[in-house]
């Protein structure tokens, strides 16, 4: 019950008792309470006008990095005797140092600076407002105020620097890049020999072929390097990512998707991101640093989810990806994924599957001494190997990633460009 109501009820009761019993002493009992109410009423602030400004030490942070939050509260109204102030923390963030609750007096025109440090896991966090309870001198009158102090913090997934990712989609874009375009022109990789044409550089003449066939000159042709359209599909389905006791592979998938997006964009490609979870989260394809930020923000907010519609890959919207472009599918994979992926390949897309190994991941926290676990592991491992072999037979490049190994090492080993001397001898 509000304090003012309790006191006024008591006063009315005493007044009534005094009138009914015709005893003045009842009124005397009521007088301290009336005095209490009166003082509270007379000394209450006339106007509550508060303003708050928020400042974050960084707006983009890495997971569990400490971020300083500073909120400056200014009182533009009457002097406030007692203010209980609490900054509302977005769920997921943890206060590392300092306090976000205070009790203070705020005189007219005075400012108060509230500072604390937070950290949190990957995610997008929105700071909305401060909650304040303004009391009069005796807290009989109390009012709750929300003062807006907006702020945004993105805790982005960690990005590993990948030097080169060897992909070879059927179709490339017109701009020069690093992806072999399956077409002759100016480049670095040898592509073939053709008849010399006026305008060709004399340096391109293949003297050996020209000496053998004396009727005309022959010139070397190099494979054009261009940029490509790449669609990264991040599998956020609950059933593929989440395991018992709250263990999840999703963070690894997000990390892989972020690193791939960063590397592919820095190679000049046009990259889009599709989050395939309880809904479709589509980041429209684009180039450069702005696109990198867009994708990282989308990945910061990515969550696993369950949906009947998107429980398998049958509803993957292939029309989002340009024909014959490259699709990078990041998923731990389940048995049902084989058909849709083979279909994608059949439609002409270049498909690269990055698959964090769920069996090794799950085994890492199961008792290895248990013979049942050992047999189960072998059976499931065989099933997975079979699935991966079927994918590879469909000309889908699969990277089986044991998440205990750093992702950059795996990419360097499996997708990196081999040294020039090794390429010369055809390895």
């Amino acid at each position, binding site marked *: 019950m509000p304090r003012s109501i309790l006191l006024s009820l008591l006063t009315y009761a005493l007044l009534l008792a005094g009138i009914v019993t015709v005893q003045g002493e009842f009124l005397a*009992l009521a007088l301290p309470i009336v005095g209490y109410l009166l003082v509270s009423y007379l000394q209450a602030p006339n106007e509550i006008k508060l303003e708050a400004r928020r400042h974050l030490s960084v707006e983009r942070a890495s997971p569990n990095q400490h971020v300083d939050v500073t909120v400056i509260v200014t009182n533009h109204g009457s002097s406030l005797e007692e203010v209980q102030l609490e900054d509302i923390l977005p769920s997921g963030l943890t206060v590392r140092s300092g306090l976000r609750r205070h009790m203070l007096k705020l005189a007219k025109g005075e400012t108060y600076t509230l500072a604390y440090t937070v950290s949190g896991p990957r995610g997008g966090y929105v700071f909305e407002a401060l909650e304040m309870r303004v009391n009069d001198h*005796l807290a009989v009158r109390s009012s709750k105020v929300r003062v807006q102090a907006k702020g945004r913090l993105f805790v982005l997934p960690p990005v590993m620097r990948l030097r080169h990712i060897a992909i070879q989609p059927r179709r490339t874009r017109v701009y020069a890049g690093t992806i072999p375009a399956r077409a002759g022109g100016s480049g670095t990789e040898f592509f073939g020999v053709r008849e010399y044409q006026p305008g060709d550089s004399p340096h391109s003449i293949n003297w050996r072929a020209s000496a053998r066939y004396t009727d005309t000159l022959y010139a070397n042709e190099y494979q054009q390097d261009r940029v490509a359209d790449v669609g990264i599909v991040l599998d956020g389905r609950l059933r593929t990512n989440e395991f018992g006791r709250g263990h999840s592979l999703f963070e690894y998938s997000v990390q892989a998707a972020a690193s791939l997006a960063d590397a592919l964009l820095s190679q000049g490609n046009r990259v889009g991101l599709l989050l395939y979870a309880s809904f479709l989260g589509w980041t429209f394809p684009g180039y450069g640093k702005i696109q990198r930020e867009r994708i990282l923000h989308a990945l910061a907010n990515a969550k696993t989810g369950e949906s009947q519609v998107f429980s398998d890959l049958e509803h993957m919207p292939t029309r989002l990806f340009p024909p014959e472009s490259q699709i990078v599918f990041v998923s731990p994979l389940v048995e049902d994924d084989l058909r849709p992926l083979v279909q994608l390949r059949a439609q002409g897309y270049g498909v690269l599957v990055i698959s964090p190994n769920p069996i090794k991941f799950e085994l890492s926290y199961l008792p290895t001494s248990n013979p049942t676990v050992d047999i189960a592991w072998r059976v499931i491992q065989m099933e997975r190997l079979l699935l991966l072999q079927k994918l590879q037979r469909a000309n889908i490049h699969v990277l089986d990633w044991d998440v205990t190994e750093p992702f950059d090492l795996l990419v360097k080993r499996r997708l990196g460009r081999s040294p020039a001397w090794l390429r010369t001898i055809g390895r």
Partner: protein
Amino acid sequence: MMTIIAFVLSILLGTASLARGYLQAGVTDYSRWFLLLAIFWLFAQYRKWYWFSSIALLITVFAAAYGVWREFPAVWMLLGALGGLLGWDLSDFARRLSYAAPMDDTRAMERRHLGRVGIVAALGVGLALVSLYVRINRLAFEVAVGLVLLAAIGLTRLVIGLRKY
């Protein structure tokens, strides 16, 4: 700390005054109950059962009102109700202080609050004592009714003003 000391003193003032008044009137049974009330109130505060303060206020004020009705010594009853009121206020203030961070200037707040509560208590007791000892023997019925109405209207305005905030 200051608040806690003042709170304990207020409870002692309230319950001891009521016990004394009831003892003077020869009602010994209830006096023990006031002692128990004081102990339980302190225990409730220690356990952070702040809701009990409102109940304790009601008990002390109604006990004082009952004493007044039975014509027990009015001064003790008045001090009993006042002790209850102060205890109730300081209990809530202690609750609000628990909200403060260690770096907040709570000592200054305590000093200011206790000063104001002290003034309110002195004013209330002063007015009450005046009302107890000053007797107006001849007052027309119409004037009495007018005063009662004025008090009721004034009180209503006060409560509305407090609620509007």
